[in-house]
């Protein structure tokens, strides 16, 4: 066509992306409600429109694909077909094929250079439209994605040869934000109101000047009126400022589809080069996040997708052999949960093989066999987040390259102030869940004093602020600890941890103090890990705009940003994950202690990680050899597998509680006379009696916990 084709192609790309976005929503809606005729009509129109305009631009592969898709949608519209799972799958594949083609075009591929439409896919779509059974339904894997790469390298340009597929795994966002006009208008309207409020302030200032100029004492009633108006003016102005601030921050919010859309294409490209068949589903891409978060989100998500494609989803043959459909499902889903955004990357692949993880950890000498045995299923799975851990037997193009899951975790935790969790079922798949704050720019901040400085932490890390006498602290091998909410939590003076001059009494001489003033403790956490920090005083709590550190200070791990306090003070925000890391390092040497030659073996059963760890520290400091178990059942298995000289157990635990465990162990010959100590928060006499009835040798209440009691009891029982 003798027109400015390039200009129209650009327009076509924009509109096609728009249509494809709506198609994704439409197909997802159809998946939930197959009789949704309105959705079918919308989908039909999108396919039809793309067909029409692509034909005018001579984008033949797009026209052909859109045509086949339109045929199937037309059959659905006429009721000749119903949107069962197979049809939905075909619709997605048709849409994906269109997205790939439009994507190539968007990446600058010339219209003539587009690969031909996938004939197998078009045939499958049209066959389904004419009511034939899907010729490649279950037995033969659908040739859709792979066929272009493997079946016809001579007949048509292979997608791997096209420019966009050269670098699967690369993604870039440009550095501008598109703001919806109505949002901008809203800010401008608010600005107008702020300005008119300001005029009112001027009026009040003039009024005040008249008071000042007046030598006589001001009239009381006028003064009262003035004060009322001033107060109201300030309050109105404040409300406006808050709203203005919110709206301004909202302008930085972007929908997740900016990251999600390119990702699903990337996933298909990657799947193709790995010879796997994958349907990538995206849900919740309309959820909005702060621009700054969006920028940092794509790298971790790319890695998670790679991981799923590389380790999760099996090759088609393996899937078919396992009784699964040949095409794997990869889901990228987001939803909002209060002030948080949750993002889930899940696959229906092989899941994480725990045995392989253990082997790998042993092989890489990350952990000893004993340490591994002490890990719960979840803790074992989380090994993949350890630096230097990669389960891939072969170094493949994607997951094995350079960065590992540890980097993903670190970037989610450090850069995005979020959290990354993992669940996996062997044979059924793996799911990574990211929990992210909506925005990094504005957060709730707690300001306090420690070591003569005012410091802050962001609220998501704060568990509680409590005041406790130092006599509640317990000495452990690594330092001090206390019991709170039924858990042992390590305690340290923040000033000491940061190496600041200590202003309060140091922890080292805390418990022996005769006069025992309460210590102010800031309990922080990250995931399951908790830490109690001794601070001097609370300053205040409030929502603050967090300012990033200047470039030359960004490498400081302990500080995550700055906030302003009062007029011009700058307060550093402490980065809690880094504090926890430092705490781990300072308490590390305790684990180096060699067990004594004839070490008693003790099994510690408790569902709280902190409690287990601290009891372990205490006992190891006294030369005991400790094995950990995380619930009664786990404890029982371990007790049956090896022999122990004593058992320490909590009462309330999932699966099997401490009473049941004790009773069960007493049935075993090997444990009939073995010391069993119950450590619990249950203070009631009836519980104590029950504990002794089931056969425990001692019953220690956590609230009154003193390491001496524990150690003395053990010593007495072990003789």
């Amino acid at each position, binding site marked *: *066509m003798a*027109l400015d084709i390039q200009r129209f192609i650009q327009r076509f790309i924009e509109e096609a992306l728009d249509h494809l976005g709506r198609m994704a929503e439409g197909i997802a809606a159809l998946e939930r409600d197959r009789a949704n005729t309105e959705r079918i009509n919308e989908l039909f*129109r999108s396919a*039809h429109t793309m067909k*029409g305009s692509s*034909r*005018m*631009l*001579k984008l033949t592969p797009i026209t052909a694909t859109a045509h086949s898709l339109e045929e199937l949608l037309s059959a659905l519209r006429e009721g000749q077909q119903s949107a069962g799972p197979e049809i939905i799958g075909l619709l997605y594949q048709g849409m994906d094929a269109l997205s790939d083609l439009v994507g190539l075009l968007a990446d600058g591929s010339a219209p003539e250079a587009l690969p031909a439409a996938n004939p197998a896919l078009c045939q499958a779509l049209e066959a389904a439209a004419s009511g034939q059974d899907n010729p490649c339904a279950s037995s033969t894997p659908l040739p859709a994605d792979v066929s272009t790469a493997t079946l016809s390298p001579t007949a048509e340009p292979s997608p791997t040869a096209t420019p966009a597929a050269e670098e699967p795994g690369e993604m870039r966002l440009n550095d501008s934000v598109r703001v919806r006009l109505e949002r901008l208008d809203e800010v401008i309207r608010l600005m107008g109101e702020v300005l008119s409020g300001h005029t009112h302030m001027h009026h009040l200032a003039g009024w005040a000047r008249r008071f000042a100029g007046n030598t006589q004492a001001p009239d009381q009633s006028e003064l009262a009126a003035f004060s009322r108006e001033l107060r109201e003016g300030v309050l109105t102005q404040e409300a406006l400022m808050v709203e203005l601030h919110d709206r301004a921050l909202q302008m930085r919010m972007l929908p997740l589809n900016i990251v999600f859309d390119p990702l699903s294409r990337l996933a298909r490209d990657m799947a193709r080069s790995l010879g796997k068949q994958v349907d990538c589903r995206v849900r919740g891409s309309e959820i909005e996040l702060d621009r700054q978060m969006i920028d940092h989100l794509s790298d971790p998500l790319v890695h998670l997708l790679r991981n799923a494609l590389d380790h999760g989803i099996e090759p088609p043959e393996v899937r078919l052999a396992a009784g699964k459909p040949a095409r794997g499902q990869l889901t990228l889903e987001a939803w909002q949960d209060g002030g948080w955004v949750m993002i889930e990357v899940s696959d229906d692949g092989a899941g994480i093989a725990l045995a392989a993880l253990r082997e790998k950890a042993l092989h890489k000498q990350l952990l000893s066999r004993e340490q591994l045995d002490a890990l719960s299923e979840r803790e074992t799975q989380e090994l993949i987040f350890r630096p230097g851990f990669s389960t891939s037997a072969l170094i493949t193009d994607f997951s094995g390259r350079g960065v590992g899951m540890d980097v993903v975790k670190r970037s989610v935790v450090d850069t995005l102030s979020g959290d990354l969790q993992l669940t996996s079922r062997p044979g059924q798949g793996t799911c990574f869940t990211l929990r992210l704050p909506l925005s990094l720019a504005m957060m709730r901040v707690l300001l306090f004093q420690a070591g003569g400085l005012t410091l802050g932490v962001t609220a998501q890390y704060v568990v509680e602020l409590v005041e406790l006498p130092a006599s509640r602290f317990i000495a452990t091998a690594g330092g001090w600890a206390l019991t709170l909410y039924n858990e042992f939590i390590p305690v340290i003076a923040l000033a000491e941890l940061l190496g600041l001059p200590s202003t309060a009494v140091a922890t080292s001489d805390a418990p022996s103090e005769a006069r025992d003033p309460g210590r102010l403790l800031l309990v922080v956490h990250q995931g399951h890990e908790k830490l109690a920090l001794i601070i001097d005083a609370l300053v205040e709590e409030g929502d603050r705009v967090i300012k990033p550190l200047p470039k030359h200070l960004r490498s400081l791990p302990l500080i995550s940003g700055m906030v302003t306090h009062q007029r011009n003070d700058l307060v550093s925000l402490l980065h809690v994950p880094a504090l926890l890391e430092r705490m781990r390092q300072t308490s590390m040497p305790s684990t180096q202690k060699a067990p004594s030659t004839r070490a008693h073996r003790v099994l510690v059963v408790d569902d709280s990680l902190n409690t287990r760890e601290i009891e372990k520290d205490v006992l190891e400091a006294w030369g005991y050899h400790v094995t950990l178990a995380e619930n009664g059942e786990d404890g029982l298995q371990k007790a049956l597998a090896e022999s122990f000289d004593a058992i320490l157990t909590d009462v309330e635990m999932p699966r099997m509680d401490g009473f049941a465990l004790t009773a069960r162990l007493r049935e075993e010959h090997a444990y009939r006379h073995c010391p069993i100590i119950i450590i619990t928060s249950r203070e009631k006499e009836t519980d104590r009696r029950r504990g002794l009835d089931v056969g425990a040798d001692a019953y220690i209440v956590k609230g009154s916990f003193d390491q001496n009691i524990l150690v003395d009891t053990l010593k007495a029982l072990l003789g």
Partner: protein
Amino acid sequence: MRILVVDDDLLAGEMIAAILQEDGHEILLASDAMDAMTQVDHHEDIAVIVSDMHMPLIDGIELYRTLQEQGIHLPFILLTGNAPEFIDAEKIGLTACLMKDADMDVTLRDAISSILNH
């Protein structure tokens, strides 16, 4: 000459307009049949209507018939995306029925110039 282009796909409409504008025609765009009827009522100098076949609610043929019923006998060029439904233009009195494709710059120009030559 003033030409009314009716297409629910704005992009397609603009492309058609671009072809015709190159030849110096003045173009009005309508996004559906209702819009087209309104435009015809408001602009008496419309000389030709170029309309897409497939549009929601009222399609191109319906639009043509409605105009005929109202006594508006303007030259009418119907554009269609699908080959099988190619319509015998002369039989129902259409000026032309064209395939909506990359050759439109030639076929549409021919159709318009044949109208001018009449």
